[in-house]
């Protein structure tokens, strides 16, 4: 069985020192080892942005695609080979701005993949513009007088879209994050894990200290029940989504692959493509 070290490669990330993304990279590597994966059975599909580079920093199959489209690519990979563990990953701009349409529909579709959002509330790679996750009044290069648009609450949207697994974590809490990724991988269906990942260069508001002061770990909330969707929704609304831990999980609903009519239990990628003559004749006969 592979150890977490075997999920490392020798490529040095181009993230700034102190970036929250380093811990997320480590958590994915640890979780992959903890659930017993071999590197060749993991595929990490990422979007564009600082965080999108993560697929290149993990020793596994990986595809660094185009901005906002990690999710449809990842879903395609999973449909083609359901034996693979597929992790999609990208930033808040990637998943909640340009790719928001895909996020909602991937949630609805419920294909068995894990989506890890590295949420720094800013556009980092383009050097500091506002993101849908930026707070109101947040001053950036593109909002010099402060953002007037409402802050997006993706986890509320996820719950409203029929999500079967919703979690949130903080890059400083490696233990919780690793555990949530493990649970996400083991969940049957689409799992969304939003991770606060401070941008030390362009976001001077939502810093490590700021998060430490403001987030509430659900482990400390008595009687919190992650199987209760209404409770999850009201907790998110009540706290402005500043909670970490497993927020909601529906263990009843089956994944897309297990519900779609006729979908093969064995990986499609390993099937023979040849069509039998009798089968062909039958198909053709329909057009006579």
């Amino acid at each position, binding site marked *: 069985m592979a150890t977490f070290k075997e999920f490392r*490669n020798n490529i040095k990330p181009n993230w700034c020192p102190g970036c929250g993304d380093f811990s997320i990279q480590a958590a994915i590597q640890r979780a992959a080892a903890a659930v017993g994966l071999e590197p060749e059975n993991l595929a990490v599909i990422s979007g564009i942005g600082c965080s999108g580079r993560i697929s290149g920093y993990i020793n596994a*199959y990986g595809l660094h695609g185009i901005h906002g489209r990690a999710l449809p*690519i990842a879903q395609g990979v999973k449909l083609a080979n359901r034996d693979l563990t597929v992790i999609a990953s990208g930033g808040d701009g990637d998943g909640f701005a340009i790719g928001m349409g895909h996020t909602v529909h991937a949630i609805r579709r419920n294909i068995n993949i894990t989506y890890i959002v590295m949420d720094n509330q800013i556009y980092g790679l383009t050097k500091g513009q506002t993101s849908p996750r930026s707070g109101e009044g947040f001053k950036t290069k593109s909002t010099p007088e402060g953002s007037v648009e409402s802050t997006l609450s993706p986890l509320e949207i996820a719950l409203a879209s029929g999500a079967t697994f919703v979690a949130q974590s903080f890059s400083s809490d490696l233990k919780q994050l690793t555990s949530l990724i493990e649970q996400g991988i083991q969940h049957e269906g689409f799992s969304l894990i939003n991770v606060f990942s401070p941008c030390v260069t362009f976001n001077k508001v939502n810093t490590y200290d700021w998060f430490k002061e403001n987030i509430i770990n659900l482990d400390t909330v008595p009687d919190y029940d992650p199987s209760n969707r209404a409770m999850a929704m009201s907790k998110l609304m009540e706290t402005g989504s500043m909670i970490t831990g497993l927020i909601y999980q529906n263990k009843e609903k089956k994944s897309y692959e297990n519900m779609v009519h006729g*979908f093969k239990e064995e990986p499609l990628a390993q099937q023979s*493509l040849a069509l039998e003559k009798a089968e062909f004749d039958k198909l053709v006969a329909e057009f006579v």
Partner: protein
Amino acid sequence: MISQLSWKIGGQQGEGVESTDRIFSTALNRLGYYLYGYRHFSSRIKGGHTNNKIRISTKPIRAISDDLDILVAFDQESIDFNAHELRSGGVIVADAKFGPVVPEGVDAKLFAVPITSIAEELGTSLMKNMVASGASWALLGLPLEVFNKAVEEEFGRKGPAIVEKNIEAVKRGAEFVLELAGGPLEGFKLEPADGKQKLFMIGNDAIGLGSLAAGCRIMSAYPITPASEIMEYLIKKLPKFGGTVVQTEDEIAAITMAIGASYAGVRTMTASAGPGLSLMMEAIGLAGMTEIPVVIVDTQRGGPSTGLPTKQEQSDISALIYGTHGEIPKIVLAPSSIEECFYDTIQAFNLAEKYQVPVILATDLQLSLGKQSCEALDFEKIQIDRGYMVKDIPDREDSSMFNRYAFTENGISPRVLPGEKNGIHHVTGVEHDEAGRPSESPVNRKKMMDKRFRKLAKLDVENPIHLHAPHAEPDLLIVGMGSTGGTIDQARLRLNGEGITSNHMTVRLLHPFPVEEVREQMEKAKKIVVLENNATGQLANLIKMNVGHHDKIVNVLKYDGNPFLPAEIFERCKNAAGNLTQEELVKNGNL
């Protein structure tokens, strides 16, 4: 006895025009006639004039006719809109209900049949289509038993009572019209056909069938006219092969999901029309850059923007060839017949994997939706070539990644699928080195660009052009693509009658352009007519850019939403064959 005839049915959309056409043509197909259909329809569900035209022949045909022999009309609008097409002495079969009138100046015989009343008497006005098709059938003097068999098949699963009612409707329609006409019409009696049943399908069916034969197991697509029939066909079939169609949230998801599935090793396809293709362009660049094979069908329709969504056009050519930012190797293939829709779909999957590039299969609306007879499809010709794939990779001493993008002589690098031990590499749309790691090195950049383009240097495509070249030095070389070939051939017969010799070339490989094959034919001709359904002469420009001979090329363009008619091509080619220059022809209104 005649060897061919044109029949049209018109009415309001949603009124049974489609079903009348379907049952009538299915019965004709059963007798072995060759059929070629054309649908005139609007982008709405109920209401609005719609009509379907079928050409019926004892010999193979691939074109609609200029005129019409029989018009079946459910309303006066259908008569007013279509009667001008009737040949002198043609026939109108109309519903007596609306008091049909033959427009002034039209020389046609009118048979007012109480189509709606008969249907209602039998229980429901829905059976109008049966009464109308029964009347049409009887006028042609064709045996009713064959028609009844088609009815049985259409309605069999609804039970014997329904079948019987429909057969009765057919019979009543037939009896009524025969009484009016005094028996089957002289001059409309069709010669018997060869009795051999042909396949009868639309291009989109042939593409769907071709993709199954090619081993496609996943299709991701977003509904759009005129492509949706492909996904609708495959969702019925793919579950039997363990696969599925995913209806995605948009075309960007459709193409990127296809790229993901293809990367992971499944033959995957998406299909759309112009607006969808525009949305896919960035992702097509990703497929080119990452060398992931994928097949994209573009059923061209009237553009730009929403344009004419239910009408014929061939105006995506430039967009398909150039429409992604930066430069990637890609293949654009344009089938020109229903059979080619089938074989080219298989070829597209093979080319995509062999050369590890995106392959676009470009049809046009008439080819995708026009229902027509199709020659038997040859199972033996189905071949699957998955290209340079590697498995069971030996352990390496160091911990280096697999060189998925290794520099090779022909540019094609070993492809390995996720899940394969010792095959781990990176894939990125960023310029990368042999293992897929991002690289900005100028030396690597140039080598990688050259490697990707080298793949197509020795591209092997079956029949990049089609040629009918009976003349060594023709007056005209007529060049077309897509669905126009059959109509061009009809026009050439007439040109020949006027002493104008012509050769006919269909360009099937739009990109990379088959320069040598095309040049050879262009050099032999005195003039070259490039005929296409767009306003700017995109195919002609492609030829000028790749081959030259600007001075010999005359554009024949049509972009009003309708396919070319044989007579139009004849007139315009005749003008083009004269001594006038392109400018003079345009000025005189000859083109």
